[in-house]
């Protein structure tokens, strides 16, 4: 599904290397989690994979089912099945959530050479998906994310995921700013989308999200690299002992992480 090899990334405007050789392979149907201290490069990885401006890939490669992600426009990556659930979903005043969802879905279908969805079918689809995420009709009518609570914004991200049906979902700190109930709702939404043909990369600071979204593989990222890979136990270990021991083991100073 997702193949990342020796990925090196620096900031475009600054001489600052963020990713220093990331290797990662996510198989179809698997949930991988990436944990790591602040500044380890987790969010940068998610932005580079989805094509945000401001970064320069200096070395390495990344592909999604054979598509060279680094050469593709963000919309091409999306049409190929990549989805990034934002840590801070963006507010777009004046554009209705429904319009946004339908524009996105039809754009992806068009890019894949599929027919546009009819207004009736779309409405049915959105209603069905929204219901399971406890998103009410009012939230669908309002402008994209405007006046949404933190929990509503994150649920709206998952709703987009449910409607766009991507193959590779990256969740960038989707648990940040959520209370326990909101987190459970979001996790339930993600779990409902787990499928043999769909993979997840869950980026998080804390183990608690992984209580709800059970990962197959856990990676620890620090200093711009993946320094440790293991099973769900690895997340428990970090939760218990923190990152200090792991960083020391790999010779990464805490402030450098």
């Amino acid at each position, binding site marked *: 599904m997702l193949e990342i090899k020796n990925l090196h990334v620096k900031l475009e405007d600054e001489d600052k290397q963020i990713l220093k050789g990331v290797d990662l392979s996510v198989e179809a149907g698997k949930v991988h989690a990436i944990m790591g201290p602040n500044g380890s490069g987790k969010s940068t990885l998610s932005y580079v994979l989805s094509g945000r401006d401001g970064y320069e890939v200096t070395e390495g490669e990344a592909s999604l089912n054979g598509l060279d992600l680094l050469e593709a*426009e963000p919309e091409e990556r999306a049409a190929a099945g990549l989805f990034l659930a934002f840590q801070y979903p963006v507010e777009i005043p004046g554009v209705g959530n429904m319009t946004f969802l339908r524009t996105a879905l039809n*754009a992806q279908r068009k890019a894949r050479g599929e027919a546009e969805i009819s207004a009736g079918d779309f409405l049915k689809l959105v209603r069905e998906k929204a219901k399971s995420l406890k998103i009410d009709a009012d939230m669908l009518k309002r402008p994209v994310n405007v006046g949404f609570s933190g929990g509503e914004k994150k649920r709206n991200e998952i709703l987009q995921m449910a409607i766009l049906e991507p193959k590779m979902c990256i969740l960038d700190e989707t648990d940040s700013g959520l209370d326990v109930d909101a987190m459970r709702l979001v996790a339930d939404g993600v779990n409902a989308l787990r499928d043999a043909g769909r993979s997840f990369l869950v980026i998080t600071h804390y183990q608690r999200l992984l209580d709800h979204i059970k990962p197959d593989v856990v990676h620890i990222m620090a200093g711009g690299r993946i320094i440790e890979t293991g099973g769900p136990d690895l997340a428990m270990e970090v939760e218990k002992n923190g990152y200090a021991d792991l960083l020391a083991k790999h010779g990464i100073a805490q402030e450098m992480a």
Partner: protein
Amino acid sequence: MSAVEKMTPAEARLARVSLPDGFGPARRDARDRLNAMGLPGRRDEYWRWTNPTDLIAPEPVPATPFVDDEPELFGDIDRLKIVFRDGVFDAEASDDLALEGIEILRLAEAGDVNWASGLYGTLEAAGQTPVARPFATLNTASATDGILIRVTGRASKPVNVIYDYSSEVCDPILHHLVKLEEGAEITVLETGTAGARANQLWEVDVAKGAQFHHIRVQGRDHARRAVTGIFTRVAEHGLFKSFTLTSNGALTRNECVIDIVGDDANAHVAGAALGDAKSDPFHHDDTVFITHGAERGESRQVFKKVLKNGAEGIFQGKILVKPGAQKTDGYQISQSLLLDEDSEFLAKPELEIYADDVVCSHGSTTGAIDETALFYLRSRGVPHEEATALLVLSFLADAIEEIADEQFRDEIVTRLESWLARHRG
């Protein structure tokens, strides 16, 4: 050297002012006022950012009439059509000038004795202080046609004034007057381009509890020049709402002068302007002056401009709160979205307040497309240009929301979308 050669263009233009029949006293008064104030020059503070030269030149710069290939605006809406072609009323293309709740006369046929004789030119004249607006005065003196509408009840359908022109030197002066009696209500739609160089004026008298809705879509002609004026007086509990969509146009100056004279009155004026100067120049100027002369008045000015390839946008807006106009709520926002580094937006927002218990605010911003929002949309699969178009609509939303009626709003949005589709890249 003859006398004519010694004249400045402005003097030459003044010498050519004609006074058509009807409303004689008002027209003569306007001519005298115009001679006293003169036509604006480049040094005029009020014309600092918009060059009036082409507006005062003896002859218009020729403009090839533009063929609008879009479906007719408001074509599906039941409305009373009043068509002016080349500045002349076109009876054949127009509906019967009869509608329940209103009385319609034509300026060119009204003569001197009618309900409008005490009103014609008075709101325009009242709007000349503290700033002179010579093109409006020229209009009062020389207008050759227009419609005079007296609204006595609730107009049973909107009135649509439609302009069209076929001569590339068409230079019409049209003067419309709307008198809303107590509690009356009307929606006026105004669409198209009146001429290569047009001077269009509205005087709107809103009586107690009356409601006036105005939705204007200026024609898509690239080469045309237009100077327009709206002069209104709003009595207690009255409502005045005007929205203008402008796309294209070598030169457009839209002035709006609102006088809130009764308590608890509302006046909203909004505009969305779209300009792409890639192949033709675009210069758009919104100049607004709102006077609060009564208590608990509410006014809103919402002006948005989308500019690219060297397009120029101007906003001059003022709120004047007179002594005693307590509990005034005045709001003004002017914003531009620059789609490249070549375009320019100049704004002069002003507040002048002589009452102590008021809420007034003004803001002006200029900026580019929000990159984060653009990335968000693209990450969902929306291609760059379509995402940009959505963000432009997002930017314009506040202005469009000033249109109260959803069906009109939808037509405006459709027009905006097709403009954006034509001006990608």
